[in-house]
């Protein structure tokens, strides 16, 4: 995640001593949208933390909160790709419900094991993705239409697959995807989860190593780098933040598998969007399709790939959701598409394409989930819950637009 702030530092090889202030200010400006939302998220946490007498920020609740957010976060991660390329996917909700039901049918009715079920379900997701990609990329039908059609279709298909009944229960191994925590390995009686602690330390070490290697490589290329003292301060701050978040889970029941999966997907997608040609092409297509085409980018192939990825990710989200409930129901996935789109937008993805980050979308998903969780925790009336959520969405985007205008 942190890699993102670094790439955008201004570089000036001809002059090796730019003012530190300038670097900081410029880095702040470049990432203003994410910072605004991060501050909003922290604000929400502080608010609910205070009015709930600290219950909201307890390890247990935050751990719950992350798990409640995970399905939407997975969908939002790939929705960023779709939206950056200038499309939209309205089908993810009913498709996630459908694919969750497919997994349940394969496991409960057909009797397949966990691994075959996962593979087959992802395959079905992939096929749906190819179907979407075909129409969008090769037949030129707007994604809005293609996925609206699918949204309707899969709303029907889920009834066909489940025959209207709830399908349960899933196998324990499958269930663990949505509900399980990393087991304790060495210290079964410690008050914290040892495996999770080890993994957390590995995460932090990996970050330090990558950050350091990045610095070395920049020095090798003769680019400006932060003075060593500042770089170290920055590194320590980020490490502490990482440790804080991870320790929430370590001191509760450990890191849930679902969160581990999400972290993996976020790192993967951040990497794809920032470091691969495919990712770059996605941004170029969303920014100016004609220019991208004349620069030799294969727009069809790129669009097809985007929807294939979206299909597989929807399958993953659907399975995590089914695993968490340990059942597939016919109403599953209803309106998830809007939550995922809202998360992406709150996190800075443009509705016009060309802009957006995966990390932002995760922050967006956390913002909406935190609101849901906090208000339900405080037992607020459902009427106000809806209204507050709507207003926060509106205000978040507005504050962001206003600050961006000022600092552009």
């Amino acid at each position, binding site marked *: 995640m942190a890699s993102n702030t670094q790439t*955008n530092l201004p570089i000036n090889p001809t002059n090796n001593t730019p003012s530190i202030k300038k670097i900081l200010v410029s880095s702040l400006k470049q990432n203003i949208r994410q910072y605004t939302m991060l501050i909003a998220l922290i604000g929400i946490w502080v608010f609910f933390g205070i009015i709930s007498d600290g219950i909201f920020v307890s390890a247990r609740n935050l751990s719950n909160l992350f798990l409640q957010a995970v399905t939407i976060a997975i969908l939002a991660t790939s929705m960023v790709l779709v939206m950056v390329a200038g499309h939209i996917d309205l089908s993810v909700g009913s498709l996630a419900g459908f694919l969750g039901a497919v997994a349940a049918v394969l496991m409960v009715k057909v009797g397949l094991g966990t691994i075959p079920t996962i593979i087959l379900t992802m395959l079905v997701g992939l096929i749906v993705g190819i179907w979407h990609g075909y129409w969008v990329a090769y037949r030129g039908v707007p994604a809005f239409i293609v996925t609206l059609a699918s949204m309707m279709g899969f709303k029907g298909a889920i009834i066909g697959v489940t025959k209207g009944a709830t399908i349960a229960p899933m196998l324990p191994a499958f269930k663990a995807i949505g509900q399980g925590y990393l087991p304790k390995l060495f210290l079964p009686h410690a008050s914290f989860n040892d495996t999770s602690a080890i993994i957390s330390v590995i995460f932090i070490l990996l970050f330090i190593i990558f950050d350091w290697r990045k610095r070395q490589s920049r020095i090798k290329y003769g*680019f400006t780098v932060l003075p060593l003292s500042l770089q170290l301060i920055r590194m320590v701050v980020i490490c502490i933040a990482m440790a804080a978040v991870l320790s929430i889970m370590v001191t509760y029941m450990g890191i849930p598998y679902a969160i581990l999966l999400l972290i993996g997907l976020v790192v993967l997608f951040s990497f794809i969007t920032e470091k691969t*040609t495919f990712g770059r092409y996605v941004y*170029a297509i969303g920014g*100016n399709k004609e220019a991208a085409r*004349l620069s*030799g980018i294969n727009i069809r192939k790129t669009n097809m790939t985007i929807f294939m990825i979206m299909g597989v990710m929807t399958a993953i989200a659907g399975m995590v959701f089914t695993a968490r409930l340990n059942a597939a129901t016919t109403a599953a996935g209803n309106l998830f598409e809007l939550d995922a789109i809202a998360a992406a937008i709150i996190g800075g993805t443009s509705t016009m394409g060309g802009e957006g980050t995966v990390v932002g979308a995760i922050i967006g998903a956390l913002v909406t989930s935190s609101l849901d969780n906090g208000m339900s925790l405080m037992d607020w009336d459902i009427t106000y819950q809806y209204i507050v959520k709507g207003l926060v969405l509106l205000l978040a985007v507005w504050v962001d637009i206003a600050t961006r205008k000022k600092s552009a």
Partner: protein
Amino acid sequence: MSDYILEMVNITKEFPGVKALDNVTFKVKKGEIHALVGENGAGKSTLMKVLSGVYPTGTYTGDIVLKGQTQHFQNIKESEHAGIAIIYQELALVKQMSVGENIFLGNEFQERGIIDWDQSYIEAKKYLDEVRLDINPATKILHLGIGQQQLVEIAKAISKKANLLILDEPTAALTEHETDNLLNLLVELKAKGVTCIYISHKLNEVFRICDTVTILRDGKTIGTYPAQELNEDRVISLMVGRELTQRFPRKPHTPGDVVLEVKNWTVYNPEIPDKKILSNVNFTARKGEILGIAGLMGAGRTELAMSLFGAYAGKRTGEMFLEGKPVDVTSPRDAINQGLCYLSEDRKQYGLVLMMDIKNNISMANLSSLCTNNIINSNEEVRAAERYTNDLKIKTPSIEQKTGNLSGGNQQKVVLGKWLMASPKVLILDEPTRGIDVGAKFEIYNIMNSLVDQGVSIIMISSELPEILGMSDRVIVMHEGKFNGELPWEEATQEKVIFYATGGQ
């Protein structure tokens, strides 16, 4: 005092990080044609946008005095009411709407909000006749070429019956013939008492019609002079702040082997499959030469380039050989891989991703050279971008700047940088200096020369005859989709080129 129709005093306008105008004073006499010249990014367009209310009162400092009265325009409507009409540098037309609708957009023939369409179309036709554009006013803008669109813009401005008419580079997309028409029209309007501010990088036009010249450099006024006291060289040195001894840095080239050979190239209209846009075109381009392609607007030069580049939607027949080998180019990617690159005539629509930064735009056509296993080495990318930014002297605070925030000339250089990075064997430049100032043009010509020295074959499509004559080693003239004549540069003259371009045999 009162013979000034317009006085802009001590205008200062800042954008975040850029002081676009710094205490500019600009005065225009009643009834004159007043030229505003300066390098790219000097602040000409910004000054005019301040005047027309695009940047409303309060976003700049200084005073605007129109016909003796201080004005505080809040928006464009107010400046129109005060008698100012402006043609912006960027075409401001709605593509899905008809020519007639566009001409009167914002000034409809209406009564209580209800439009009289019949009246509108009749009037529209009159204004189209006035700018000598013979098209049906019900045609949609998207069916027009960029030059025709420019004429529609001019008709739109004239229709406002303003007494102060501002034209920001109106001839950038026009051919000689249309330019002639336009200049004559301006002179006619002047005779009717219309004052005109004329912005152009084409100094010959400036001297043909302008009475007074004001020069801007880096957001400051350098001076205002009667046109007869100046000549082109003097203006150029005032603009760039140094002497430019020659306009076209012609260097002797020694053409080598044939790199590109095109045989019986025929291209059909994508919408009307049996209508030929190009018929039986044959030509060769050699290593280390600049091949100029001249022609009137609509002669099919852009279609030729696009079809060679694999980017044209219509059916094509014919053969193409690169370094003697037959090649089948079906997409821009194929073309780029074969070493054939194309810089399009419309940088904003087809050249740049405006919301991306300079770095990412430059690397876009040749990302694979920065990659191992499709993973981008961002340090290499920065290094490459730095190199082209320095080589092409792109004026920018950093390579992280969004290209949308650059001036036109600098944007053009970014696109050029993109194609240089793709290391082409044949580079097709379509109107490479459109909307670019003399200083930057000179730099681009120098870049072309050094490319040719490195063995690149350049095909230059241009509607500016001096450029064609000044830079090409060989000139091909197109007329209505056919090659109508070929001249070595020593024999190419303005008269001959125009003779062929208008269909002479």
